[in-house]
């Protein structure tokens, strides 16, 4: 086990805490003997106890919006939750700023002028079953869509090729081929055989994009290669070479946090592909706050978090750059939108955990259109 694996294992919340059910025999007897309807009622009670924060996937961005002021022609955005991002979903991601009382300072490069980035309502495939069937045909997977529960559909061919469609949040599709089933024993980032040229792969991706039919565009690709060596279940050595083209999804010239990738083998056979399934509607220009105001919002959110602390913050968060991107949010009416989001980069000094580079996110929509907590989250700089 490598050092990294050891360190990862050391953070396992379940390590060194042996689990022992109160009474397994009683549980089994109860399950086998209880009619399904009664079990359902018990689950509803449990669900009520555990409630919506069960995985806390979107804790950092629970917003409440009020009716908009100053722009009566715009419908009010009522945000239910952010759909992705570096927010916590595991015990390992407790928000750092819960332990670091920060004083946010905007550097001279942080603009006082708001950009003109629009917001976009997403149009999703009406039927997950129909869309998974369409995508399966596109990738040559023959079979009937089967619902696996909770919005997940799968089409599997007799040869083993699979198309998965996950209709949760921003729908995502995944294709995997019938390539050799290997469990990698060794993996490296280089290959010793000729791989398809970047131009060939990119051309094929563009062909797939036209077939997919979604109206988002892609960034320039980044290419990576991998060699995976292993032994088959029969004991024969097996090496798989692959090349992956990775893209960011672009909407009207603005980057999003959605991505798409295609992986091929040396013969340019598609091994694996994945990406989002949506169409972008017309842009709506909600007024945005400036990046400088966004830093001020970070500062205000921090003060609210530490309002019980009388001492001034010891740690300083110097924000040195800001970029705007589009991130998906679900509104309370169930619709999905891509809304402008600032990602600030900077560094923390004077913190108990030492100095470190950081990024912070803040919804860019003008605060007059937003009430409630700030859409603030924090991550590591990369």
């Amino acid at each position, binding site marked *: 086990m490598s050092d990294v694996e050891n360190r990862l294992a050391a953070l396992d919340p379940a390590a060194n805490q042996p689990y022992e059910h109160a009474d*397994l025999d009683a549980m089994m007897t109860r399950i086998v003997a209880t009619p*399904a309807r009664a079990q359902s009622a018990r689950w509803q009670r449990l669900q009520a106890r555990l409630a*919506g*924060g069960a995985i806390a996937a979107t804790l950092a961005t629970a917003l409440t919006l009020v009716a908009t002021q100053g722009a009566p022609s715009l419908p009010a955005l009522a945000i239910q939750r952010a759909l992705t991002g570096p927010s916590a979903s595991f015990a390992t991601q407790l928000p*750092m700023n819960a332990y670091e009382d920060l004083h946010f300072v905007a550097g001279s490069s942080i603009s006082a002028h708001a950009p003109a980035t629009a917001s976009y309502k997403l149009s999703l495939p009406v039927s997950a079953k129909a869309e998974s069937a369409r995508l399966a045909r596109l990738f040559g997977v023959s079979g009937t869509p089967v619902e696996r529960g909770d919005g997940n559909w799968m089409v599997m061919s007799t040869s083993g090729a699979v198309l998965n469609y996950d209709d949760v949040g921003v729908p995502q599709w995944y294709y995997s081929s019938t390539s050799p*089933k290997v469990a990698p024993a060794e993996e490296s980032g280089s290959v010793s055989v000729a791989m398809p040229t970047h131009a060939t792969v990119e051309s094929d991706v563009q062909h797939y994009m036209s077939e997919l039919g979604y109206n988002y565009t892609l960034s320039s690709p980044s290419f990576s290669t991998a060699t995976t060596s292993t032994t088959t279940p029969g004991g024969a050595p097996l090496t798989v070479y692959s090349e992956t083209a990775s893209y960011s999804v672009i909407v009207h010239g603005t980057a999003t946090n959605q991505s798409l990738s295609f992986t091929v083998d040396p013969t340019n056979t598609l091994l*694996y592909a994945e990406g989002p399934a949506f169409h972008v509607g017309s842009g709506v220009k909600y007024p945005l706050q400036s990046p400088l105001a966004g830093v001020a919002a970070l500062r205000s959110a921090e003060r609210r978090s530490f309002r019980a602390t009388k001492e001034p913050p010891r740690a300083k968060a110097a924000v040195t750059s800001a970029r705007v991107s589009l991130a998906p949010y679900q509104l309370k009416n169930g619709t999905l939108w891509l809304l402008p989001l600032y990602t600030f980069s900077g560094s923390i000094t004077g913190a108990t955990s*030492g100095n470190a580079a950081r990024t912070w996110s803040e919804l860019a929509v003008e605060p007059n259109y937003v009430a409630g907590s700030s859409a603030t989250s924090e991550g*590591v700089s990369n």
Partner: protein
Amino acid sequence: MGSTEEDRFARLVREHSTAVANYLRRRLYPLTPADLDDLVEETMVIVWRRLDRVPVDAELPWMLGVARNVLRNARRSKNRRSAFEATLHASSSDPSAEEFVIADVSIREALGSLSDDDREILLLNAWDGLDTHALGAYFVVSTNAAAVRLSRAQARFRELLSAAEVH
């Protein structure tokens, strides 16, 4: 328990309830023992109802997939986080949040910066012990596709960790 079905169910429960509990505990933390037992039981209820669908060569991944859906359904319930926090209490034996933070800040930060998909497959491998065959069964993809996904997630994690430790 007398029938063959019941015997198989009993074996699945005895062999895998700890792994299922740990899977749940890792993703919904902290939990009281009673809450954890209830989530395990809900998972086993579904295992019992769908016993004929449990693949003999991938029992644990299939059961973890059920546990995953149990958590997803919990997430979709109408109540808010405040209700959740008000009802769940850390076990006295749980390490404190500060202890978690101090444990390895860089690892935590790198994990926090991964996408949800990358983090899921990375931790299924690192914490839940699923190899690429089991990961393939869990995600219902080929072993090779699971290996590609895992490899990418590990590479991205190493990159993020290196970046975190530069500073």
